């Protein structure tokens, strides 16, 4: 392709973009919105997965005693449980030990210190390990039916639930995404169509003097791609700032919830948004020129 021809494309693309100013703005905005929502869902799943990953997979059942239980009663129960069928190992911990562990894990958490100052909100309890994974649900049920037990968490079940949540979220994301993508395509293709309409005389002349279809199409396709890219850029900026803000808020109030770092989020959303933006721009403009550049 000649340099002159590239120059022609760029000039025509620029004319197209500025020619339909408000529509271009509307296109960019919808692209950005659609991609932001895409990023939002992927970031949410990313964080749920992260949370699932942070759960100690080694521990099989984590048991908490009711706060009113005496230490002696707790120790008696732990000794009994050690002899239950299927139980391989039991690791007892006091709420003071649990607190120390939290503190070691999140040494810089101000909110946590505030909370602790008012008293230890945690529970005594123990981690239980079984011989066979299949025994876990029965053991958990038996533990829960014990009066002094506040809660017995089947860790695998928690992970499974988080994974199920991710699936639901992703599916909902797809549905919303498809609708947004369609709306975006509609607006982009109308923007481009407006440009085609504004330049119908030129297009007519170009065809008459023997310009190829592709020479006529390219500026419109490029225009679509530029709209998509600018939208993607805006979405990425919004994701970065938005997520940073969420991170700051989260650090203040629930820092022991393991949020994925901003850099990870940016890395995982940039490529999909750029690809999505370009794809929507290209498809939208192809759609527009297909219908209007016949014959």
């Amino acid at each position, binding site marked *: 392709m000649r340099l002159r021809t590239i120059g022609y494309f760029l000039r025509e693309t620029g004319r197209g973009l500025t020619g339909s100013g408000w529509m271009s703005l509307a296109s960019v905005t919808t692209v950005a919105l659609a991609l932001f929502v895409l990023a939002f869902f992927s970031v949410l799943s990313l964080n749920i997965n992260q949370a699932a990953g942070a759960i100690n997979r080694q521990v099989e059942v984590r048991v908490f005693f009711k706060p009113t239980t005496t230490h002696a009663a707790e120790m008696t129960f732990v000794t009994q449980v050690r002899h239950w069928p299927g139980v391989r190992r039991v690791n007892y911990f006091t709420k003071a030990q649990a607190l120390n562990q939290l503190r070691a894990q999140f040494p810089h958490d101000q909110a946590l210190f505030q909370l602790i100052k008012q008293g230890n909100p945690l529970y005594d309890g123990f981690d239980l390990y079984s011989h066979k994974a299949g025994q876990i649900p029965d053991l958990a049920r038996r533990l829960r039916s014990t009066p002094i037990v506040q809660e017995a968490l089947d860790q695998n079940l928690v992970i499974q639930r988080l994974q199920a949540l991710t699936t639901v979220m992703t599916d909902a994301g797809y549905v919303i995404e498809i609708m947004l993508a369609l709306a975006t395509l509609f607006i982009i293709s109308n923007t481009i169509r407006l440009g085609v309409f504004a330049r119908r005389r030129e297009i007519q002349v170009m065809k008459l*003097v*023997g310009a190829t*279809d592709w020479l006529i199409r390219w500026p419109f396709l490029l225009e679509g791609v530029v709209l998509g890219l600018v939208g993607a850029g805006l979405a990425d900026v919004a994701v970065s700032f938005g997520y940073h803000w969420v991170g700051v808020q989260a650090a203040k109030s629930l820092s022991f919830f393991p949020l994925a770092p901003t850099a990870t989020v940016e890395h995982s959303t940039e490529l999909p948004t750029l690809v999505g933006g370009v794809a929507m721009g290209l498809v939208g403009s192809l759609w527009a020129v297909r219908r209007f550049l016949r014959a």
Partner: protein
Amino acid sequence: MIRLEKVTKRYPNGHVAVDQATLTIHRGEFVFLVGPSGAGKSTLARLLYHDEVATTGEVYVDQFRLRRLRRRQVPHLRRQLGVVFQDVKLLNERTVYQNVQFALEVVGASTHDMRQRVPELLDLVGLANRHRSLPAQLSGGEQQRVGIARALANRPKYLIADEPTGNLDPETARGIVQLLAEINRRGATVIMATHAKDIVNQMQRRVVALEGGRIVRDEARGVYGYEA
């Protein structure tokens, strides 16, 4: 060479605009297409530059068989044909120079070629000193000259003019036809659909007359033959 073999054009609404037309036009000829309004002159012209496709029969333009022309080949055909219209179809926001340049630019001409060719063309049509004017600043005749210059930009072998003088007074029209004659003298085949009785009679060129889509007359040195 242009050749029509039993060409019929039936529009989608069922109207037959060209009916079993057979016609040969050799290189270098100057041909008037005449006939009453609705006779099919414009349709015949549009068949030549593949704006419409014949329903039956075949149209040949040099090596191109137009009913079988692939989409990708249309631009190649169009570069062999210059087309001029009654409503010139100039780009109003571009200058005379840019309008002519546009035709070269969009077929990928080099900057060097364009710098040479555009002034040459404007000179040919007598508008060398108006190259910076916008179409709105030109008279009808001058606008049509720009249209002709643009049609000639890519050195077409054929010039198809559909009522190029339809909007012009007789004097200006004569000027335009003289320009077409000059272009023809330089080698291009010219096909002109017209209602301009005086001009046709005066020029004494080949006249093909259409009526109801049929070719009813084809004379080497013909006359208009209708009351204008």
